[in-house]
């Protein structure tokens, strides 16, 4: 039986670790949908000057030829200049690394950031690209054929859940 950590319990340590590295040039971007939920929780606790940016990487995916366009791409909204910023890129679960690859490509179409730091709630291993998270809430073993997802309850509470992969 795999032990799934409590998402809420992982937040305080992530916030504490991130706080010490925030500078006036730091800005945050959350990846739709789970990463955006996580970023919406982290952002107000870090006292960042810039409003939160949200990104949907649908137009940068590498499986379009196989899968087509996903059904409800959200609009990417980055309400600050990316140029010269220290970007905290936030996602819920790090797995193959392909979503992050797509996000890096999209981000560079907005400008040249000073740096990009990857922040995730959970790392389930299984990387297919040379990508790593600098800040990670927990390492989670996920059984074959399952996927790890972040859920947000009506009251805003976040929870990690296992479900059968499609």
């Amino acid at each position: 039986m795999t032990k799934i950590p409590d998402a809420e319990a992982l937040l305080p340590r992530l916030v504490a670790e991130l706080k010490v590295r925030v500078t006036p040039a730091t800005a945050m971007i959350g990846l739709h949908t789970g990463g955006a939920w996580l970023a919406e929780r982290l952002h107000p606790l870090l006292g960042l000057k810039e409003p939160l940016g949200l990104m949907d990487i649908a137009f940068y995916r590498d499986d379009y030829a196989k899968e087509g366009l996903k059904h409800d791409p959200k609009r990417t909204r980055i309400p600050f200049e990316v140029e010269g910023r220290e970007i905290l890129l936030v996602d819920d679960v790090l797995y193959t690394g392909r979503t992050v690859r797509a996000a890096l490509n999209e981000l560079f179409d907005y400008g040249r950031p000073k740096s990009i730091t990857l922040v995730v709630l959970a790392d389930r291993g299984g990387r297919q690209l040379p990508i790593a998270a600098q800040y990670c809430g927990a390492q989670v073993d996920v059984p074959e054929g399952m996927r790890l997802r972040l859920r947000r309850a009506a009251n805003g509470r976040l929870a990690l859940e296992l479900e059968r992969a499609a």
Partner: protein
Amino acid sequence: MPRSFPHNPQLNANGELQHLLSIEGLPREILIQILDTAESFAGVTEREVKKVPLLRGKSVFNLFFEASTRTRTTFEIAAKRLSADVINLNVAVSSQSKGESLLDTVANLSAMQADVFVVRHGSSGAPYLIARHVKPHEHVINAGDGRHAHPTQGLLDLFTIRHYKKDFARLTVAIVGDVLHSRVARSLIHGLTTLGAPEVRVIGPQTLLPARVETLGVRVFHDVRAGLKDCDVVVMLRLQNERMNGALLPSAQEFFKHYGLTADKLALAKPDAIVMHPGPMNRGVEIDSSVADGPHSVILPQVTFGIAVRMAVMSIVAGN
């Protein structure tokens, strides 16, 4: 071998959009999918780098058998912003004039590895004919066929209305002028009724309204003042001189006097009404300059939205 279409020729076996031929017959969910996707692309078109890598390596052939500047250009821009390779063929002056048949032209382009055909043709139904004969990985987008349909214009009109009015549920929309010759009007009426606009009106002289137009679910007005009363959206149509054979109208001046949109006629609509026009405009024929350039006009935003809508349509069909 021509493939047969058991159901809707626009949809594949999974019910996904394979070709865009007409708004008529498209389920509400697909219209919403296109509008939502276009909303995301509208964000891309506002960036400094107005390009995404989605259709990299794909070839889009613009096949225009009938002249068009705006539609062809916006399709070209949309394809380029999706990183596709775009090939513009002004077929009116090439193969067709040498006697090549429509399907031979398409077969030749298909042999050049096409992925998407954007087709404008003077004959209604030409894009359907092409869609029936292309290979499974090839997609056809209707960019206007005869008097029949102009679905991407209809979609960008719907996108514009939703952008300014948020919701179709309480809207009164008036479509004014030469409905008879307008493929734009037909596409828009189908879209509005599918998305639940409660009242769509067509306004024009009897000679410029199609017979039995009310069967499309619209209210018919011949008096423009009565028709414009309390409208949220006013869509002016171009008086299509090039499509008129025979005397349907006494004169353009006479038409302007009765049906041309002026500030005093527009005052009958709601105070926050928007004015749309698919272009190209005939100033002083169907619309007065003071209205075309006035605060209610969203005619130029329509053009901008048209790029995002065409990006959405191309990326959805090419992925299915």
